[in-house]
């Protein structure tokens, strides 16, 4: 049916509130951040002047910023394989579980839907150097306690552990869905073809079948991990030293503690570039999965 002029005008009119809000709340801030990255503007300072790529050069040369990229990378490298492996493992165990499967599934998924900020308080209690359960257990075993969140060696791994605890349920749910779609006849065929062992059949049948979902989960988990903030802000504030100063926390500090808006904006551009790449990747994978 050909559109009349009136219909087109009506359509634009109806779409305009949403479009306006999107422009105002999403596109405009993004452009402002992008613009700020090319100026010397600081909150409450002089009117901004254009400085070109100076901010990018300075940030890349800054050892603290480089360190924070490394810290973030280390965090990702601990959380993503951990949550991926545990999520898959739990999914495989739960799949063979008849009764009570829903109960276990819910329990393992709970950390993901619980507010991480609130849960951080619970973790703080557990990890408290003197009355936390972790150290009390160590003491009961005759071992010395560790100041988990104030020790440079343990702070980041402990945060990663909390990250794994939080994300495992998420990965598990996706793997469970993928596992139910593996045709039972393929496993039967593999048995008759001589693949008696569960491990052999995992590689022959299950693995290839869930590979695409696994890749998808990997990308999403990476996106989640690069955005870690709650636990850092509440439990370590980037410390001890710079041991847990992750990318998002740097942006937060630069922008809201030091009021160096231009530096924060430049770091945000880096951050956005990375998450945008992941987002595109996720979209692509989602599409191929839908097509398969």
């Amino acid at each position, binding site marked *: 049916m050909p559109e009349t002029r009136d219909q087109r005008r009506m359509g634009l009119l109806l779409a305009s509130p949403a479009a306006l809000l999107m422009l105002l709340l999403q596109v405009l801030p993004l452009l402002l951040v992008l613009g700020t990255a090319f100026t010397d503007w600081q909150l409450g300072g002089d009117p901004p002047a254009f400085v070109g790529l100076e901010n990018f050069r300075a940030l890349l040369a800054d050892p603290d910023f480089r360190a924070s990229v490394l810290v973030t990378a280390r965090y990702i490298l601990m959380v993503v394989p951990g949550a991926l492996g545990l999520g898959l493992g739990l999914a495989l165990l739960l799949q063979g579980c008849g009764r009570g499967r829903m109960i276990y599934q819910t329990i393992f998924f709970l950390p993901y839907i619980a507010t991480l900020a609130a849960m951080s308080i619970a973790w703080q209690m557990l990890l408290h150097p003197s009355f936390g359960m972790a150290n009390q257990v160590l003491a009961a075993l005759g071992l010395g306690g560790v100041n988990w969140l104030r020790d440079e060696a343990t702070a980041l791994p402990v945060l990663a552990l909390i990250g794994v605890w939080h994300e495992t349920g998420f990965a598990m749910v996706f793997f469970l869905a993928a596992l139910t779609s593996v*045709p039972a*006849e*393929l496993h*039967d*065929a*593999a*048995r*008759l*073809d*001589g*693949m*008696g062992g569960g491990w*052999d059949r995992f590689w*022959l*049948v299950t693995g*290839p*079948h869930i590979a695409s979902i696994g890749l998808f989960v990997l990308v999403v988990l990476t996106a989640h991990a690069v955005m870690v903030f709650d636990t850092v802000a509440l439990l370590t504030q980037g410390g001890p030293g710079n041991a847990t100063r992750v990318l998002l926390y740097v942006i937060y500090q630069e922008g809201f503690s030091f009021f160096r808006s231009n530096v924060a904006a430049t770091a945000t551009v880096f951050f956005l570039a990375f998450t945008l790449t992941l987002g595109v990747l996720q979209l692509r994978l989602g599409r191929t999965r839908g097509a398969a």
Partner: protein
Amino acid sequence: MTQLEIEGVTKRFGEMEVLRSVSLRARSGEFVSLLGPSGCGKSTLLRIVAGLEQPDAGSIRLGGRELRGVAASERDVAMVFQSFALYPQMTARENIALPLRVRRLTRLQRFAGRLGLSPAARRIGAEIDRQVEALARTLEIGPLLGRRPGSLSGGQRQRVALGRALIRQSSLLLMDEPLSNLDARLRLQTRDEIAQIQRQFGVTTLFVTHDQAEAMAVSDRIAVMLKGEIAQFGTPQEIYRTPSSLAVAEFVGATRLNRFEAVAWPDGALALGGLPLGLAAPALAGQRVTLAWRPEGLSLAASGLPVTVRRLEDHGADAFLHAEYEGRPVAARLRSGHGLAVGDTAWLRPAPEALMLFDAAGMSHPCRPLAAYVHA
């Protein structure tokens, strides 16, 4: 020589008894069909033979070897699945080769062979390749070997699945409704090819189907399964001509059975609507019986059962008459050119030699010509 021996196999799923003491023997090289409606337990029996399900009781011997406690992967059994169950990430060649690779190469060799590290693995791999190529030529799928299942048609997948089942030359081939995922025309063609290939390879075959025409066309013998039991085990002719029970007679056959309730005379003589059949079943004297004929057992005559013509189907070579006798439908196969029209009254004469006689419990009974009985 008996190749497969199923004895007293019983299986329950919870409260439901799916198989009730099923026994069956197949000779070496024989093509045996398990024919029955869905839910009769035929697929369960097949899965038990394969080792994919465990029976609650009974034993299965293959070539004299007891299979109880032997894992599916250790049984000398191959299977073609309803969905074909090809590994989607592998080419047709890799799918067919897999059963051989698993058995002839160690896990390490399979891995090293892929990297080209082990000369022994490469030698065995080349030998396997040769066998796959030879089999593919027989199955006429040579040009398809490099393709993945996703890019093959249903019929092509079927052949690849058959290739994977035949490559290891196991002593028993199981097929679980292998034709049900094909369209009607391909089904007929593939049906004949399966029968031909089975004879060519001489492998003992157990073929599950719910389609009686399929079973009749390919089998040496058919086991009709009803409600978890083997109701009859015999050649297609025996199953069709002399069904052991009314239930088998009704299940086998493309069209409905013509059934008539009657009472045998005190001397056992049988008659239908006052029309003496010249037959007697002394064992059923005075009892209620069911007389049944297949449509080809009734023919037009100058006298006999008066029927009203309701519908006529012309099949070219022959014709089908759907009529009514005493308010009940009757079907007869006639020669073309019968000259009948809807609404006519015609007379059908039942052929005594085509009679199937069943007692009140639905079990088959023999009958003899009356004259012979009188003389005897």
